């Protein structure tokens, strides 16, 4: 039996790495991957702590819903990225600065 704290450590590291990817990479698709990594780390937390609850399936259901919402989010985000590329010919977020100044 593995203690819940180990799961929490792993998820903390995954969350931090996802955040680092999100703020380092200058490419919208790779930034999206970072967001996915962060959502996954949260899922690990939910599943690991659900084992301590009186009803273990509540937490598991929650992580299932998070997965579905993440899939929906990726679909919409990729559609927006494709549209952005049609207009601006770039997906570097630093170059999409039309509203600046």
């Amino acid at each position: 039996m593995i203690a819940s704290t180990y799961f929490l450590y792993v998820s903390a590291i995954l969350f931090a790495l996802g955040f680092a990817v999100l703020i380092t990479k200058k490419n919208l698709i790779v930034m999206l991957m970072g967001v996915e990594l962060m959502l996954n780390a949260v899922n690990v937390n939910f599943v690991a702590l659900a084992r301590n609850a009186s009803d273990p399936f509540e937490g598991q259901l929650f992580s299932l819903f998070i997965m579905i919402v993440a899939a929906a989010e990726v679909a919409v985000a990729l559609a927006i990225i494709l549209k952005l590329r049609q207009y601006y010919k770039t997906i570097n977020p630093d170059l999409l600065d039309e509203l600046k100044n």
Partner: protein
Amino acid sequence: MELFQEILEADLLAQIVFGIFALIAIGGAAYLFFTKNILYGAYGLLTSLLGVAGLFLLANAEFIAVSQIMIYVGGVLILILFGIMLSANGKNKGDALEVINVNNLLSLLIALVISGGLGLMVFNLKITNAVESYGAVNHINALGMHLMTSHVALLEMIGVLLLVVLIGASYIAKREKS
């Protein structure tokens, strides 16, 4: 299944397997951070997601592990690969494939601070020991009962959300005639 359960109860072996899966998950994420090739980054994410699926298995969440593989690896990642392919056509295709790293060291430092802080918080938590196993509960049965009784409103809302996303995404991405 019996054999698997018996092996799982052997503590040392479970810890070793946990360590392997955790290394796979963290290694894939670190590869995504350090690589400069967008396609290799997607493969790193794939590795990381599979490792997390293994972690779910070790946490007695078989159904979540399977849906992780089906939704994330089979759905989200394929969608991202399609996004890479679709955005890398036409003129200046190099731009879509180019990955520029800025403030590499600074963001690694921030990541270290975040994970260190969260780790310290977890270290100070007092968590009661988790249950050994759920006994003779049919996982899929119990999850389905929850979905159809106490969480049925959530299920309906998720269905509506998926419909809205389906219509909205295809409307946004459609090519305008010009």
